């Protein structure tokens, strides 16, 4: 019992019966310690983290959320990975022996040829018994990657990344063949997936030319495809697991039981309470440290700030990964308990739940209390953008409204003070956004200032007047212009945010009503196009401007294709520039195109860009090698911790304070005894 020393210490002198006995009784009964972990785990290298909601699925073909990637990224291994320390983000080989050979094939097609490391094994899993009695693992082959790519194309799997991967030749065609075949032969649809795929024939652009060789044929204007090979979507997937984990006869579903070749295995998974990742003894980094594989060895190069932060400590450089033997994530629905437990030393880092760290950081730095506790802070700008969007199909604020609509949007943009917004809602965290592109992404210009993202009430009022809404009065009704801000967020914090925006717009005389409905109603509104203003965010899949600018491409318009262009922004010149920019390599030419695109956005204002989130990771001093990583990519394998130091600190910080208990008992006795005495005396 961690608090035991404190308890017995307080009680030592008290032998006579009295309040001390009660305290002792209460403490033994209720185990007076706030340590949430079994005492036996105190000295193990276990990293404690948390999750808010269990991911809906852990199927790497579908899982697309940060909380899911925290598991799938550690359990599934990919051909490529990002360098842990280098910025801008750089791809390094993962399962692949090296970066792929790239050559141009026929007209407009590029071939990427991967070579897989030999002798890489999957984790131990009973499903491999399907491939031969008694087998519990097998070697990873490129056919498994082909299988997974087929799954991505399979309409029944319903992968969210069909769109970008359709740049692979024959990708959509494969899905279509599958669909037609299934409709024609209901029998066929009941076969195991890998048999169906084999029967339908390969994806044209995916060629397994050797057991460990894989060539992928991709449209030349989509060089970003490589990034997808650094994401769990394209992991090798054993067909055995897909067939075996079908949710029938007590077997879990694949969505709840990942089977991969990554550094960790999911040892325990209770969606309501916790999950545990244990080191995978079959991981190639563990079995073959002598390979010194780039993704299984602590990196030796990085940025200057890494050296300063001790992330290039010679004690770690070149050592085989991983260091942490187990990761235990507990469910924390509420931010406060999570953060308090972090302060008590029961979580090692507060970097997963965002709400928590804005509580302790003021004016960009750590509070004194945090610093005293040896807590460190790592800031990094995430490749994200948060924005308020206008529905450009709307009659009042959209493209239809022509010039008045544009002026209205410009005016509304001019009064939203992002600095203040950041100060109030994230303690100054976040970079005020001038365009959709965040720092660290090509095309971001630190010197660019969007004239409509300055705060200028006077100019905004002028624009309102020019738009025909002098003082915000709608000439048709003679009353303030009324707009609606739709959101599915009914939380308390959400309400405050919206109140902030509506207050800003009320200065212009615009009355914006917040319609915080439930998610169903919100989706229905979005589907029907019955919305005016909304708030949204985008987290990059990969570090390329294309992944941001496509959010305003007319092909992606929600109203037309159900795409993520919820603003329904349709601008022919923008589209033209976008398509040209997309396949260009980073360089001056591309920069010029991007600049013209941002100019269009600056003028048209389909969005009010708010900020690019800044990640403030707090961690205790016993945790080392922490570097914030913007992309949804787990970095547990690089981290290390000192369990002994942790235990000592926890004990020092969590000694139970018992005097209030004594005080309560004394007050109770003091108040009741006279009454009891009088009562008894009266009856004599």
């Amino acid at each position: 019992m961690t608090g035991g020393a404190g308890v017995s210490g307080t009680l030592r002198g008290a032998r006579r019966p009295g309040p001390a006995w009660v305290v002792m009784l209460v403490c033994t009964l209720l185990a007076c310690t706030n340590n949430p972990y079994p005492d036996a785990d105190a000295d193990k290298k276990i990293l404690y983290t948390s999750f808010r909601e269990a991911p809906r699925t852990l199927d790497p073909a579908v899982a697309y959320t940060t909380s899911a990637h925290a598991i799938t990224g550690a359990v599934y291994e990919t051909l490529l990975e990002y360098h842990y320390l280098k910025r801008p983000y750089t791809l390094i080989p993962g399962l692949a022996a090296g970066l792929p050979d790239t050559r141009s094939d026929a007209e407009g097609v590029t071939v990427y040829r991967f070579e897989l490391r030999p002798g890489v094994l999957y984790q131990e899993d009973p499903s491999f018994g399907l491939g031969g009695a008694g087998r519990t693992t097998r070697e990873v082959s490129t056919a498994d990657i082909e299988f997974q790519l087929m799954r991505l194309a399979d309409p029944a799997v319903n992968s969210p990344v069909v769109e970008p991967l359709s740049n692979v030749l024959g990708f959509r065609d494969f899905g279509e063949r599958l669909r037609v075949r299934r409709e024609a032969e209901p029998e066929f649809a009941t076969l195991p997936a890998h048999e169906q795929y084999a029967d339908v024939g390969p994806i044209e652009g995916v060629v397994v030319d050797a057991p460990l060789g894989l060539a992928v044929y991709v449209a030349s204007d989509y060089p970003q495809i490589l990034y997808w090979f650094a994401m769990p979507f394209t992991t090798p997937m054993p067909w055995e697991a897909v067939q075996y984990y079908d949710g029938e006869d007590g077997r879990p579903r694949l969505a709840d039981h990942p089977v991969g070749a990554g550094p960790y295995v999911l040892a325990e998974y209770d969606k309501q309470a916790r999950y545990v990742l244990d080191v995978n003894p079959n991981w190639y980094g563990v079995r073959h440290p002598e390979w010194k594989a780039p993704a299984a060895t602590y990196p030796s190069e990085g940025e200057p700030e890494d050296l300063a932060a001790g992330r290039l400590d010679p004690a770690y450089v070149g050592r085989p990964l991983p260091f942490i033997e187990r990761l235990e994530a507990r469910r924390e629905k509420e931010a406060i308990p999570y953060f308090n437990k972090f302060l008590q030393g029961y979580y090692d880092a507060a970097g997963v739940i965002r709400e928590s760290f804005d509580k302790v950081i003021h004016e960009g730095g750590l509070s004194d209390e945090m610093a005293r506790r040896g807590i460190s802070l790592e800031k990094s700008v995430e490749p994200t953008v948060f924005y308020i969007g206008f529905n450009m199909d709307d009659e009042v604020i959209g493209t239809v409204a022509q010039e008045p609509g544009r002026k209205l949007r410009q005016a509304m943009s001019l009064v939203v003070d992002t600095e203040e917004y950041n100060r109030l809602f994230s303690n100054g965290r976040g970079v005020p956004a001038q365009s959709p592109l965040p720092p660290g992404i090509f095309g971001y210009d630190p010197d660019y200032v969007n004239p409509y993202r300055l705060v200028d009430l006077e100019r905004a009022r002028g624009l309102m007047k020019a738009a025909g809404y002098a003082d915000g009065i709608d000439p048709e009704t003679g009353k303030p212009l009324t707009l609606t801000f739709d959101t599915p967020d009914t939380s308390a914090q959400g309400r405050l945010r919206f109140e902030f925006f509506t207050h800003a717009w009320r200065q212009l005389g615009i009355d914006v009503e917040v319609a915080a409905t439930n998610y169903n109603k919100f989706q229905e509104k979005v589907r029907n196009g019955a919305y005016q203003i909304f708030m949204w965010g985008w987290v990059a899949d990969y570090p390329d401007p294309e992944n941001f600018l496509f959010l305003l491409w007319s092909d992606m318009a929600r109203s037309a294709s159900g795409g993520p262009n919820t603003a329904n922004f349709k601008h022919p010149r923008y589209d033209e520039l976008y398509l040209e920019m997309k396949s260009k390599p980073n360089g001056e030419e591309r920069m010029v195109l991007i600049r013209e695109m941002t100019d269009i956005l600056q003028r048209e204002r389909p969005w009010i860009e708010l900020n690019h989130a800044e990640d403030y990771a707090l961690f205790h001093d016993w945790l080392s090698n922490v570097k914030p990583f913007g992309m949804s990519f787990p970095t547990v394998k690089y981290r290390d911790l000192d369990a002994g130091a942790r235990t000592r600190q926890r004990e020092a910080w969590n000694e139970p304070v018992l005097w209030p208990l004594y005080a309560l008992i004394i007050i109770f006795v003091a108040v009741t005894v006279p009454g009891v005495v009088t009562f008894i005396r009266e009856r004599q």
Partner: protein
Amino acid sequence: MEAWVFSNIVVAILITAAVGLTGVVLRSRMWSNAFLSLWRRRRVAIIAIGFYVLVALLDSVSWVGGEQFGEDAVAKYQAQSILDRAFAGIRERSYSAPLASVEFYGGAPLVHPGRHLLGTDLLGRDVLHLALKGARVALLIGGLTSLIAIPLALLFGVSAGYFGGRIDDFVFFIMSTLASMPGLLLLITLIMVMGKSTFSVCIALAVTGWVGFCRVSRGETIKLRELEYISAARALGVGEMRIIFRHILPNLAHLVIITFVLMFSGLVLSEAILSWLGIGVDGSWGQMIDQARDELSRDPIVWWNISAAGSALFGLILAVNFVGDALRDVMDPRTLREGE
């Protein structure tokens, strides 16, 4: 009709009704005795409730116009209540402690130093203003719900108790069905299905809350029906409706009042839980508490928000509980014990 006009009319009706009721109470010896005895026992609590009611009324009487609304250019076109006018245009930029002259974090000078008796919230809104506005919401929840639930319960309870037979069976079945669903879940489900609004919260609270009172009024009606003078009236051929309205309902009046008071605190507390689930009523204390929850982890801690909302809620519930207790003693010693 615009909402604020309606609200003003309701206030007028309420005040007229209150004056009328006072007249009735003064004329009836039984009622005025009961009230006198209540007043003697629970003076402070009654004054406290009176204060809440007054604040709610001040927040309900509103009109359009005026110029003192500061940065807010929309406010002058919208109806503003007396309470809102009293606090108009004193918004700050962010947190400030009670009666402070600088912002809580960063220490920038306030626009209106020393004006905020209970400080300001994240968005610089005056906390005293927000806390006082909660009174109207709380009374609205309690009042509107009771207004729906009590007539419903009386209608079903009295007709079941009086007519018996099929009607009784039917009402009893409906009551058992509703009562057997877990209250809070039913409440939440109803609100989720009806969509979030003050009115649907009240309807949901009424649907889940009327059963208890229905049971009491049914039982009491059965008892009354057996009384000799009512049997006699029936034997003399007095009409059923006349018996119900002249003899049964007046004898249920004290039950109605006690139920109303006892129900009230439960309703307001339930709303706090709904707020936590994100389906409460806008501007309620529950919502303020929910918003202020995270502030306890701020460093230095922001305590005035949660304290203001918490104690405003606590004060009202406490006063109502005390009065309800005494009311039960004064008016009815036994019938409502189940209502605990």
